[in-house]
């Protein structure tokens, strides 16, 4: 008989070694997240997937599923915290959705809609962040980086390269690239790499492709992120 955990009163089966996030996704239960991706090792940094496990806060993407767990996920207080975290991500960077080419395809924007985020709440930092447009095919807009490290993990784990890393701490944290000049053009990244396509926001972009998908055909035009996420990530888990 399969082992189970309880999420919001539902009995969810899991396999040995699965995280709560993996078990939930396979069972069709959405837990909000930004730094989690089923293809890569968990990072546990964005904290959006924080759930209560037997009364304690845990990151669902890193915490192993274990028999007898009582998990609270879709609760008012947790969603309020998730909304605050999302607001902090917005004010820390410079996110101008109206003109951003990622709008409609952006996970940060989609999760904000899902969590009913109606304003920034916190004062904007207005940080001065640079762009790196040196690469012929790719562009880094540091204004939109949320330090999820998906590009770091994709480059390392999938592409077999070490193009990206996070440097600095706290407010000085920033994305760096692996070249002496510090410019993307001098790294060994290619537009075909997984790392070039993994960014959940508009921080790493393929040049010359902006706005080619018309309004109405973008990822989140007709479905919210919970549905999109479950549809795509259940498939990935089955691989």
């Amino acid at each position: 008989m399969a082992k189970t955990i309880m999420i919001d009163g539902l009995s969810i089966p899991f396999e040995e070694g699965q995280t709560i996030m993996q078990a939930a996704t396979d069972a069709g239960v959405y837990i909000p997240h930004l730094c989690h991706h089923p293809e890569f090792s968990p990072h546990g940094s964005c904290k959006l997937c924080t759930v209560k496990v037997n009364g304690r806060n845990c990151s669902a993407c890193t915490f192993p599923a274990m028999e007898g767990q009582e998990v609270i996920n879709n609760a008012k207080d947790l969603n309020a915290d998730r909304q605050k975290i999302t607001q902090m991500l917005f004010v820390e960077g410079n996110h101008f959705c109206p003109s951003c080419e990622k709008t409609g395809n952006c996970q940060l924007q989609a999760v904000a809609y899902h969590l009913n985020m109606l304003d920034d709440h916190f004062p904007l930092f207005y940080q001065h962040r640079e762009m790196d447009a040196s690469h012929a095919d790719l562009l880094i807009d540091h204004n939109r980086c949320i330090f999820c490290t998906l590009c770091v993990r994709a480059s390392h784990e999938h592409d077999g390269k070490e193009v990206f890393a996070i440097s600095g701490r706290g407010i000085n944290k920033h994305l760096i690239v692996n070249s002496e000049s510090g410019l993307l053009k001098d790294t060994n990244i290619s537009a075909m790499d997984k790392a070039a396509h993994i960014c959940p926001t508009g921080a790493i972009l393929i040049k010359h492709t902006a706005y080619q998908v018309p309004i109405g055909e973008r990822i989140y035009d007709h479905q919210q992120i919970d549905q999109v996420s479950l549809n795509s990530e259940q498939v990935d888990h089955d691989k």
Partner: protein
Amino acid sequence: MYEHLETADNKENLKRVIVEPVSRVEGHGKVTLLLDEDNKVKQARLHIVEFRGFERFIQGRPYWELPVLVQRLCGICPVSHHLAAAKAIDQLVGIDPVNLPVAADKLRRLLHFGQVLQSHALHFFHLSSPDLLFGFESEISKRSIIAVIEAYPDLAVQGVMLRKYGQEVIRMVSGKRVHGTGAIPGGMNKSLTKDERDYLLKDIDQIINWSVASVALIKKVHGANLPYYDDFATIRSNYLGLTKPDGALELYHGGIRAKNADGDTIIDHVDYCKYNDYIHEEVRSWTYMKFPYLLSMGQENGWYRVGPLARVNNCDYIDTPLAEIERIAFKAHSNEAMVHSTLAFHWARLIELLHCAESIKTLLNDPDILSQDLVAKGEKRYEGVGVIEAPRGTLFHHYQVDENDIVTKANLIVSTTSNNMAMNESVRQVAAEYLSGQELTEPLLNNLEVAIRAYDPCLSCATHAIGKMPLQLELINAKGELIDKLVKGSDGHIDRNLYA
């Protein structure tokens, strides 16, 4: 003509009257009058007090963001900025207008006709019709679209529906009524489906009929008030705009034509990429808006008007039959080669509205708008200029990029900027001819706003649409003391506070 009223001598001895903000225009501006002891106007200025800074903050962004970014300049005519920027960035990917895929060219024109239609309908019915139907000095309760709905319900509904139709055209082509996408470097991101085309086609004949009726209405209003309408705020000026190679009215793409007040050609069929050789901008300290002028005529005499009046004056003909009939009637009403009446802006605007409606029908019946051949690409360039006839006049976008595709320089000359000198002249004309020497009252001051409104300036703001914009008038004596004050609240209520 009235330049002597731009700057008064001995300002310290004059009373100051401020009309702020100017209502029922797009955006924020104010008018200041300086009066002597006998209430004679000595100085009149229209100040544009908004500062947007787009030219600066688009520097450092990748060029493909431009059409979507710069359209945020405005909520009324974003499509104009979207398309002017798109025409400029076409050149950055090596595509000149002749190389744009036919379908993309026609879809952009359709988008633009929808835009001009909705903007013109908005301006005439929502913003200006109260003045024209009830009189410039009518009681304040009459000066709003609400009063028009009460007195002329059918007309008001037609105005709303005309605007709605234009916005539906925009939505079908660009995905949203306001601030959609659509134009991308070298083309468009979608064509119309048959369902979308049929949805628009089913109402187009009604739209044309209503457009015909609206031209008839303005013709009747203008004719019933002659010669007042021909004289009010009227100035003789040069006119500038795009025309087709054969001289026909053109809104999307053409060469620059400028004519002087006598109708003589100053420049014609000028490639707009070389606009810098013909047009310069002057900066004055008392307003954020620059003063463009034709270089060959100098700062003093080179200012010009743009927009519907300029376009209908400048063109040799209009290539849609119903609008052409109206253009001929329009030109015939004046004894001069050019129609200089500032209030004739309204008439010309509605002729263009009709032209847009007819053109939309033609394009909807063109199978090219269903084609999937939408994007072309050429060799990268480092500079691009896009010029379009926006609802309010000729709009220039000029960009330079570096080897990394990042914008390094931007210059925008928006339509309202070109009309800056003319609006100031019209304000001075009204101040000199209609206000000077009289005790100023709120209805009288509305004359100044009527003059400005005729140009449909886009100072950018939509909250004025119901005609209850808060307004404050202050009369200050030569010693700087406040002696009279009129305050209009956001509910339209007026208070007058008299000071000893």
